């Protein structure tokens, strides 16, 4: 019972109101033909149990956690509709972590000990993932981390731990390079006080320092909703800042973007605006940001539309039909993670951890986010078991209610769909 009444804006629901007549017919057809396909296609026998971890209640970031869970459930339905793995169906046990390391740790223990999972995927908070990987490492259970950006997760060098999302060092070096290329000279930075915000600031600052770009920083608690004072302070600064960069993923990001716009700080002819952290590609972005979202830059951690493969297209179509919103990158990562683990089990021919780890190290499976491969190089340490080609583009909305996939791509230049690297409103 997720949502009553607000069905048109709210994408998350367990009632699946968006399940169209057509999908139902297809599903019914699949069920009817399944017996004809014989034993192989029918997922029979003892299920193979996978675990999922992530925040489903406060103080965790449950908004995104619930989307990731829904995407994982979609993957499992599809895997089972195709006959499961090794002739057995896949079952996922979902464990809520409330965004707290201690809860993550017990959740991990539970999945391993009680539910006897063969592998685990998911997460959203880096500190929680760091507590969980200790458990997975202790018992040797493979773990595919999704949407956790802290470098430390892979830098620990645990053979069980893989990451199919981007990492702070990957993402923020790219953002820093874009800032330099776009010619910004004077940047105001506002970051949220948490793992992503602070690491991100450090990584961006490193690039800016190297290129001698001037910047000023301010931090804010993730729960903050009124940024007026800080924005006015930035606004009154001389000389005028040419970019307002914020790393703010929580609900307050919408307020910040709107307040910056309403107070006439950014976007303006002089000052561009960038928000990092995913809030600007979430389903309720336009409802909350309104006109203030036009001209905003942000990163998209999915493949650029030009690079979409059949799986991306199919996933986006089903997800959009079901939840009435285009999927954020974290949902795609959770979906792909379920598939990656299923494919690794299939490739290794069993559920032994060593086999799964080896299969992941050598995988070249193509998912919604492109062709996967996991680095085995340990220099620098965070490269180990990291998906180095994790897709990342910097986009800038140029129309109200534009979807992230249709927004002009500014960077990297090989994916760019427009000739400019930044457009300021006139």
């Amino acid at each position, binding site marked *: 019972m997720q949502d009553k*009444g607000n069905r048109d804006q709210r994408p*998350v629901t367990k009632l699946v109101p968006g399940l169209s007549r057509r999908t139902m017919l297809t599903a019914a057809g699949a069920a009817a033909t399944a017996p004809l396909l014989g034993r192989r296609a029918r997922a029979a026998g003892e299920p193979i149990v996978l675990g999922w971890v992530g925040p489903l209640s406060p103080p965790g970031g449950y908004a995104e956690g619930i989307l990731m869970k829904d995407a994982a459930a979609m993957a499992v339905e599809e895997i089972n509709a195709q006959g499961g793995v090794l002739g057995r169906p896949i079952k996922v046990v979902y464990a809520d972590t409330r965004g707290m390391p201690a809860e993550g740790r017990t959740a991990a223990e539970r999945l391993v000990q009680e539910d006897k999972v063969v592998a685990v995927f998911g997460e959203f908070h880096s500190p929680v993932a760091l507590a969980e990987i200790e458990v997975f490492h202790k018992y040797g259970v493979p773990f595919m981390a999704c949407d956790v950006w802290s470098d430390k997760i892979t830098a620990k060098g645990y053979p069980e731990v893989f990451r199919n999302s981007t990492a702070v060092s990957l993402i923020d070096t790219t953002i820093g390079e874009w800032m330099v290329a776009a010619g910004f000279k004077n940047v105001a930075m506002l970051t949220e006080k948490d793992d992503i915000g602070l690491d991100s600031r450090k990584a961006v600052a490193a690039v800016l320092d190297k290129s001698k770009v001037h910047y000023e920083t301010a931090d804010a608690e993730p*729960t903050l909703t009124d940024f007026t004072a800080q924005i006015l302070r930035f606004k009154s600064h001389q000389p005028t800042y040419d970019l307002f960069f914020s790393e703010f993923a929580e609900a307050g990001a919408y307020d910040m973007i709107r307040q910056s716009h309403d107070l006439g700080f950014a976007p303006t002819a002089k000052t561009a605006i960038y928000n990092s952290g995913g809030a600007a590609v979430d389903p309720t972005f336009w409802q909350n940001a309104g006109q203030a979202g036009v001209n905003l830059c942000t990163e998209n951690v999915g493949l650029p539309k030009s690079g979409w493969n059949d799986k991306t297209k199919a996933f986006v179509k089903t997800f959009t039909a079901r939840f009435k919103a285009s999927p954020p990158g974290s949902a795609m990562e959770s979906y792909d993670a379920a598939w990656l683990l299923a494919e690794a089990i299939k490739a290794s021919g069993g559920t032994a951890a060593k086999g799964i780890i080896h299969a992941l190290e050598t995988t070249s499976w193509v998912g919604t986010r492109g062709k996967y491969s996991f680095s085995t190089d340990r220099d620098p340490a965070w490269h180990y078991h990291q998906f180095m080609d994790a897709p990342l583009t910097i986009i800038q909305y140029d129309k109200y209610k534009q979807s992230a996939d249709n927004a002009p791509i500014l960077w990297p230049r090989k994916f760019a769909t427009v000739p400019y690297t930044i457009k300021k409103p006139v």
Partner: protein
Amino acid sequence: MAEYLLIQSLNGLVIGVIYAVIAAGLTIIFSILKIVNFAHGEIYMMGGYFGYFVISMLGIPPIPAIFVAMALAFLLSVALERALLTPLYSPTTERKSDYGILVTFGISIFLRNIAIILFGPFPLRPPSFFSGALVVGDFVMTWDRVFAAGAGVALLGLLVLFLGRTSWGQALNAVSQSRESAAIVGINDRLAYTMAFGLGGAFAGAAGALVGPIYALTPSMGLQPDTQAFAIVVLGGMGSVGGSIIAGILIGVSESLFIALFPDPSRGLSYAQAFSLLVLMVVLLVRPTGLFGRTHTAME
């Protein structure tokens, strides 16, 4: 710099009015029922969502929706009072103040968490009352904020009139001074408790509906205003409606100036949230009667 401080003060003034509306509700409940309502912030949150759904589902325009949200917050508060607070009036209940604290704290946990399930985790934003912004030279303020402040002042004015000029208000005032004497002159004290809790909730709900377009609505939005309202009520002197209006504005303005003047900008915003809490602690320690209050350090 002087200009920046002036602009900041004006912004603080607007926020202060909203704080005052929330705190006035808390004060009414305190002065009549003699309990601190730890669920006040959650009623404020519910008011915001009531406003949102009244607009999006029933198609009521934003301004009348404030009144519907107030009425719904009133009804919700009355229902909670009837169901859970009646032991406060029974002579057999031991340590009533503990009961009041724990029950309202329980209500706050319950409402905050059921809201996630009912309204979903994503922030929601109702449409603006008036789009655009008021621009005077370097001073910019959205019309939504200007309107919220104006409406807040109007609501507070009505409240002061209601308490001072109507027989209902005088009856409430009598109960706040002495339950026994009020009963002797024939005032139905049970009805007064219900009215006071409902009225307090209605003001929290109104504040929630007013800030809807300014900040996005989230299930946990009540946590921060709750502690801020405590600070205001304590500063204003527990039980004094006029005191909490002045204290609300005072806290709003000084909080804005605190951010403006805090020497380390990378910490200013974080510590702004602690500012009103520190004021609260200092006032409790140094002058427990608040700036305008009566002696209320112990509750019977």
